[in-house]
């Protein structure tokens, strides 16, 4: 019999001075091809916290982020995001929760080539049925230094610019949690630092928690906490 769902809203006080976590993971187990990939008894991320998930390639970092985003389910355990237990939600509700409360910056960018930079941002609001003013979107583009590229097609952008657009898009719906999967893997030191600073600054401005999965040790000092997957 599954444990009862615990509804904890981000910002609500659970006991004493504790702030309820944005992410709560309990008893999480996931195996792939008989190999245990994830095994976490309890893990939390609090509002505005910056957590880095470290591990070598194949250690399950991306899979872990997908589980946190409700993109795939684990073999056991439960994941609560913004007070909603993902495993208990119907797929469509889980999709909408992900769109509205979680921003995702993917390893391989994935901007929609058919759309302009601004339309890529509009798309993030549209797919979850939200109406967002263009001023808000242009403000986000300003914050990543690309306001003047709002009408550009995505194939006209450099890799670094496209990564910035992806960060701006992750923040369109004012998420409480931003998940970034290897956001700096293809960038040189200078650009990697810039992208990381941007992620830290923009999520801090919005008060969103940030979870970055990476094997890039250059990023380590910028985070409050780390979770090691696989061998160190």
């Amino acid at each position, binding site marked *: 019999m599954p444990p009862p769902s615990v509804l904890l809203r981000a910002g609500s006080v659970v006991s004493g001075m504790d702030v309820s976590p944005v992410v709560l993971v309990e008893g999480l187990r996931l195996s792939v091809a008989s190999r245990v990939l994830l095994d976490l008894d309890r893990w939390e991320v609090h509002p505005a916290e910056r957590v880095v998930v470290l591990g070598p390639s194949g250690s399950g970092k991306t899979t872990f982020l997908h589980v946190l985003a409700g*993109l795939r389910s684990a073999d056991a355990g439960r994941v609560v995001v913004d007070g909603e237990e993902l495993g208990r939600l119907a*797929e*469509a509700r889980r999709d*909408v929760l992900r769109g509205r409360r979680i921003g995702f910056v*993917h390893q391989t960018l*994935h901007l929609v080539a*058919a*759309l302009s930079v601004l339309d890529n941002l509009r798309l993030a609001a549209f797919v979850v049925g939200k109406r967002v003013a263009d001023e808000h979107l242009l403000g986000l583009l300003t914050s990543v230094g690309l306001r003047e590229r709002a009408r550009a097609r995505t194939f006209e952008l450099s890799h670094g610019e496209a990564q910035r657009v992806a960060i701006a898009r992750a923040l369109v719906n004012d998420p409480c949690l931003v998940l970034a999967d290897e956001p700096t893997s293809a960038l040189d030191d200078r650009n990697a630092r810039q992208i990381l600073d941007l992620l830290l600054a923009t999520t801090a401005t919005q008060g969103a928690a940030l979870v970055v999965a990476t094997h890039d040790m250059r990023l380590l000092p910028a985070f409050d906490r780390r979770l090691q997957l696989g061998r160190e």
Partner: protein
Amino acid sequence: MTLTRLCLAYLRLRVGTTLLNVSLVALGVAIVSSILLVGSQLRDRAEREIRGVDLVVGAKGSPLQLILSAVFQLDIPFGNVRLAEVAFLRTHPLVASAIPLAMGDNAGGFRIVGTEPQFLHERGISIAAGRAWQAPMEAVLGSEVAGATGLRPGASFVGSHGLVGGFAHAEHPYIVVGIANPTGTAADRLILTSLESVWRVHAPRSTGSSTGSHEHEDGEITALLIRYRTPLAAVQLPRLVNARPMLIAAVPAVEAARLLSIVGFGLESLRLLGSALLVLAALSVLVALTNALSDRRADLALMRVLGATRGLLIRALLLEALLLTAAGLVLGFLLAHLSLELLTRLLPEARATGLSGFTVAPDEIMLAPAVLLLAIGAAAIPAVRLYRSNLVETLARG
């Protein structure tokens, strides 16, 4: 951002494929639409033309040609009969009306038909300006003739020998005394005058000025349009006429049905061709959407990550198919109607059929939902694939 805008962006991205699919749908729709348009107008036209004419009597020959020449005013009549030979029909107790037609000349390509004023009443023709003819060489112009020639009551013109072109009968000018209201039948393209006018124009020079009963007895007519007094006439009269060595009786309803079945076979073949093209277009839409799914695997996965439900993505796919098809549908309809209208304006032969592009056939209205359903059917297979696909795994693969 709207779903339509997203779909249009994708269609613009693959503009070549989009144009090819729209063209295929448009071509199929244009062919089927043209067939429906022509078929429906021909049927309507046939019904209008034969209304009130139960039997046509003329010189021995093809009954279909007799109907085409005397009722539809399309074909060339193959001979004349003397009025005296059909006089028995005009007084027959089973005949309600028997109106003679004498043809042989044209003016500017419009047939000059000698007949009796009763023809106007029988064919439902009213006078818009002026009056009906009363004396020889007076003429009433059909509405299209008046529109095309600009002739008004009081104006004069001369006829030319034959039904197209020919030498002018300059010594026998006609005077316009009336303009008829439009009827939507072949009568709109006729110049109506008295039988005596036609006889006078074609009389040998030595007797050209002859008048009176002699002219009536010897005068020839091309056809006699008969309306029955009782249904019994349908059994007796054709037999009676066909028994005469020089005459033939043609039943317009029978000949029109025969004509439509001949034309209908051609139309049906073309309709099958158009339908095959539409199925081909649907297959092309299916292939385009299947390819689009492969091309956009990453985009679709991204949208799922952004929070799009499977339902939303399937709606986007269906909308894309509908947009493609709707564009083809509109283009196809425009192509069919405008080309038919252009054809009837540019070609005299087409004009004579009285077809118009500025009308909608009843069956055409059903074509739109049928084609849109075909598009949804074509989109169904990629939609099922989309529903079943694990887009998150696609994203994980990068």
